[in-house]
């Protein structure tokens, strides 16, 4: 690079100034607001709001939905990545596009389609009634909607890594007679470890915070189908601002934890290459 002139220095620091101002105003200030509002009336009120029975139930439901979404998407992501990168078959392009589809769908529509599929006007609704299976306005619906909105999160981290690496090592192992599971565990997985963890973190972040889709399908039954974000909404709409922000602060802390985990994983992943 050549020498910095005075004018380029001005440009540099102006741009840095604008960027920092933007980040503080748009990103940092909302975070601070949540914490400040949560503790506005002291720690006791905060502690009460956080340990409220409904809050605790919402935490558990959020964790449950997140965990299930991560598990299903892990199974899906690993399978799809293996199938799409190790083999050639017709319809591969279509499949890839279909996997990416859910992220382009509005969360509200994501909720709506499950309502239409399993709700009262669905052709299979009588069947579900007979078997006493509740999906809409119940936990299974929430889990399904959560899986939908996070659907490609793991597979799309894995596929580029596997594609860039080729299949030589797997072929070599298969030639020597290694079984599929051995090949995956010993040869493939070490390569995709960090990308996989990265995908899991992204998936978890979106799953625990999903609002629109879950909002449509949950029916807002407090203590039963309320996840943390839905609980925040209810509290906020009831003008219970301090509890609303107190519950939000839990999510803020989770978000920060996720950001840190993301950075660490990205750093470690880069170092390995």
């Amino acid at each position, binding site marked *: 690079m050549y020498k910095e002139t005075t004018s380029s220095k001005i440009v540099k620091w102006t741009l840095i100034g604008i960027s920092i101002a933007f980040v503080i105003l748009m990103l940092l200030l909302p975070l601070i607001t949540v914490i400040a509002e949560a503790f506005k009336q002291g720690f006791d009120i905060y502690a009460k709001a956080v340990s409220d029975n409904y809050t605790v139930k919402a935490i558990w439901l959020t964790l449950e939905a997140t965990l299930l979404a991560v598990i299903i998407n892990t199974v899906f992501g690993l399978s799809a990545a293996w199938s799409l990168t190790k083999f050639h078959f017709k319809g591969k392009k279509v499949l890839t596009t279909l996997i990416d589809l859910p992220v382009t769908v509005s969360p509200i529509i994501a909720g709506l389609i499950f309502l239409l599929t399993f709700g009262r006007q669905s052709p299979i609704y009588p069947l579900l009634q007979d078997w006493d299976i509740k999906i809409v306005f119940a936990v299974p619906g929430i889990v399904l909607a959560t899986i939908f909105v996070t659907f490609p999160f793991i597979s799309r981290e894995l596929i580029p890594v596997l594609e860039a690496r080729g299949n*030589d090592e797997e072929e070599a*192992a298969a*030639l*020597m*007679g*290694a079984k599929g599971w*051995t090949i995956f565990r*010993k*040869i493939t997985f070490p390569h995709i470890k960090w990308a996989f963890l990265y995908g899991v973190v992204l998936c978890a972040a979106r799953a625990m915070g999903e609002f629109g889709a879950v909002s449509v399908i949950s029916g807002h039954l407090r203590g039963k189908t309320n996840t943390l974000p839905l609980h925040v909404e209810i509290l906020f709409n009831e003008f219970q601002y301090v509890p609303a922000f107190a519950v939000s602060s839990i999510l803020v802390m989770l978000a920060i934890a996720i950001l840190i985990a993301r950075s660490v994983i990205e750093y470690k992943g880069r170092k390995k290459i």
Partner: protein
Amino acid sequence: MYVELKNINKHFGSFKASDNVSFGIEKGKLIGLLGPSGSGKTTILRMIAGLENPDSGEIIIDGKVINNVPASKRGIGFVFQSYALFRYMTVFENIAFGLRVLKKSENEIKERVAELVKLIGLEGLESRYPSQLSGGQRQRVAFARALAPNPQLLLLDEPFAAIDAKVRQELRHWLKEMIAKLGVTSIFVTHDQDEAIEVADEIIITNKGRIDQIGKPLDVYSKPKTAFVASFFGQPNIFKDYNKFHSFDTVPNVEQAIVRPEFVKVTKKNEVQKFKNSAEEGVVTDIAFRGSGIEITVLVNGETLTARRSFDEAAIAVGEKVDVFIYRLFVTVGENAFLLENKSLREPVVVI
């Protein structure tokens, strides 16, 4: 025949990778599959290994048709062009992998790996990862890994392609020696004619999915059967009308003539030329120094020919008039190639 291919055909889409390929290989031989890129040599290797399946035809190893035997059960060692070493395993674990799959005991594995590490001369590096090895060392590990389960047939895909020139030379000799010592039947793929000639017991030449010629390196080199093989070796000069040069028999329907540099003798006007009468006059247009001698380009009868001279011979300058004598040339008729000798070679020589 230990390995035999019978009427193998293979398409990739509309691309014909193997066109009725048939050949046989004797046990213990080291075979070079030689051809330009896209000629189908790697496809043949991958079909023998079971990495690809032929559309039709039979692959026979040790008397058994193995088309439907899965790759892992064929008892074949395969060395990939990229080596495909397991990057997250040490040298030891890489070599041990095939043995672990066979569920050998830990003692057996240790013994066998130690033996192979010694064979490839990498003692002390067992706990290194592939990324900590040089290109040549990686190649040796890939070789050892393929040999560990004692395969009856070893296949090597462009084994020297990823190695720099100097090390490649050493590795060629090393590999030839190793394979001779172990006596394992081996087939390697290469696009490098020197490599094939130097390493292989026998060469199979592929061209556009077909086998053009099979034979000992010297035979393939000096007695090419097809136009393609004749033009593939050396840096040949190719021209249409060889009748410009006298003292060659006339063959009907010749399409082109191929002259290799070693078929041409260039002498200065004042030097002794045994076949002076049959030599033609040419003008030197270019001189290039090669590591082993001087390459001279001359214009004779409107055609450009290259020839070699050693450093010991008198220097020649660009623009100098010289005598050019062509010992022999190949002529092609359709797909076939014929060798024509200069008639003067048969005539009694009068030395002046």
